[in-house]
């Protein structure tokens, strides 16, 4: 296949992501697409100073929103300050497993959000509505700890977006979502926000359930009449300690590194030849808070 035929250029840098805790995480989830763990040092922490520099540059580029991921972002000792800095520039979202947060951090973040014109979003990963369904994927005791984190967030006025990777058959969406709503309401989250994600068959997930077949690729034919704004690489880039990459999913792939500066990465198109690009094509920009397409089929009144 001619790679240039599946080349996607960035239209505008709407979303700027930061791999803020590198690949370090206190958990070792079996479906993690970049295999994060307490010992994975493939990517290192970003410093507050690094991020300040990028925030300044991002304002010139007109970035619309900032996302922080890892690993577990709150393992980075500067995370609270980084989020407070970011709220001076625009809306911030942090993707967390909610198992390591401290009251003091949340108090400071609550005040920072109140003083900012911008929203601070927490996305909390929970992959099942019970310990029986969540813990085999995310680790022993993680369900209880994550629910405790959600309760903490809610008590500070935050409305976390519960992010669940769909590790169940599509036909069970309604059942699973219903159970999620029930358990979250029982823990004091009155109107839960829930976002479903498809699995990405790379990293640890490839070992768990197998990877993409060679046919699961985006072709030039598939891109005809396709709205490329659905793809995250069309409007986002991610900063790691190595440079600026195309998207949060592919940082382990050598070709994802597009430059040392935001401007270089903005100016460089990307060939969407990976299996994960096929998932992004199928489901839209799944990484964003508001996905570009509807994944869930359930209706919760």
């Amino acid at each position, binding site marked *: 296949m001619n790679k240039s035929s599946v080349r996607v250029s960035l239209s*505008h840098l709407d979303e700027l992501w930061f791999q803020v805790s590198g690949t370090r995480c206190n958990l070792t989830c079996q479906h993690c697409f970049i295999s994060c763990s307490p010992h994975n040092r493939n990517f290192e922490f970003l410093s507050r100073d690094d991020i300040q520099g990028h925030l300044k540059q991002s*304002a*010139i580029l*007109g*970035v*619309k*929103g900032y996302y922080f991921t890892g690993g577990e972002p709150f393992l980075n000792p500067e995370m609270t300050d980084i989020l407070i800095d970011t709220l001076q*520039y*625009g*809306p911030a979202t942090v993707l967390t497993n909610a198992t390591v947060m401290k009251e003091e951090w949340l108090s400071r973040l609550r005040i920072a*959000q109140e003083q900012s*014109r*911008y*929203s*601070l*979003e927490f996305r909390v990963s929970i992959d099942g509505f019970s310990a029986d369904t969540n813990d085999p994927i995310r680790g022993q005791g993680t369900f209880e700890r994550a629910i405790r984190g959600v309760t903490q967030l809610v008590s500070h*006025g*935050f*409305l976390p977006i519960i992010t669940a990777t769909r590790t169940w058959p599509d036909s069970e969406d309604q059942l699973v979502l219903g159970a999620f709503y029930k358990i979250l309401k029982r823990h004091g989250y009155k*109107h839960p*926000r829930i976002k479903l994600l498809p699995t990405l068959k790379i990293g640890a997930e490839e070992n768990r359930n197998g990877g993409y077949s060679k046919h699961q690729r985006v072709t030039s034919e598939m891109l005809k009449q396709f709205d490329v704004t659905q793809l995250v690489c069309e409007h986002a880039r991610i900063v790691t300690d190595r440079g600026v990459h195309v998207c949060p999913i592919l940082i382990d792939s050598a070709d994802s590194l597009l430059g040392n500066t935001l401007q270089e990465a903005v100016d460089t198109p990307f060939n969407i030849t990976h299996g994960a690009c096929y998932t992004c094509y199928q489901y*839209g920009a799944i990484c964003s*808070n*508001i*996905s*570009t*397409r*509807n*994944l*869930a*089929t*359930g*209706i*919760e*009144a």
Partner: protein
Amino acid sequence: MSTRLALFGGVYNNYLALEAAIAKAQKIGVDEIYCLGDIGAFGPYPNRAFPLLTDNNILCIQGNYDDSVGNDLADCQCGYTDARDNHFAQISYDYTLANTNDEHKTWLRSLPAEIEIEVEGQRLLLCHGSPRRTNEFLWESTTPLHFIDLLLNQREVDFIAGTHSGIKWDAQTASGRYVNVGVLGRPENDGNTHVWFTTLEISGSSIEHQFHPVDYDYQRLGREMSQEGLPDEFIETIHTGWWTTCLEILPQKERAAGYH
């Protein structure tokens, strides 16, 4: 010398609020009234808003709803992605599409996607969602000031007005100003039953904007929605001022300000 404009946001079939807003704008004394699109949606009797707009020479932009209804598309192109949001949006759209006359559909098709005007030396861009996409949601808490600067500079204007998201807000930046003019179609998720429009007072050196609440017979609207078989959730919003649907698109701050 100055010019006064009224800017209406989404009407959403709420012809009673539209009628009240026109009366209020006339009382204030405006030179022109503009509507930034989405004539249909949510409320009852879709045909009733059109004569109010045309008889009062209101200049309209084509919102995503107008494009969909005018062209008999399958959905409203509102930009929701949550299943529940889309479920209710589809009920509203199917009702509006089925009950809009062909002559009004023809009129909707004729509307411009945006209007750029120069008034008293000030350059204004009136759009539905954003200058770059009709159904882009620009919320106060997720739209950085530097992003607004970018939009103003790209279009070389002093002022941008939009609607679409349903909650009014404003921002002054180094390059100019953005104002979301609010909507007439439903209250803005603050526990009040009134709706909002915006006026601009434009002189050679400045643009002053003001938001105006519009009281209207919301109980009658609720009764008529019920008669038309529209969902109880929509009627609850009209009666309480709290959104019950289209909630998942809201960012943290705007969601936390509501009841649901």
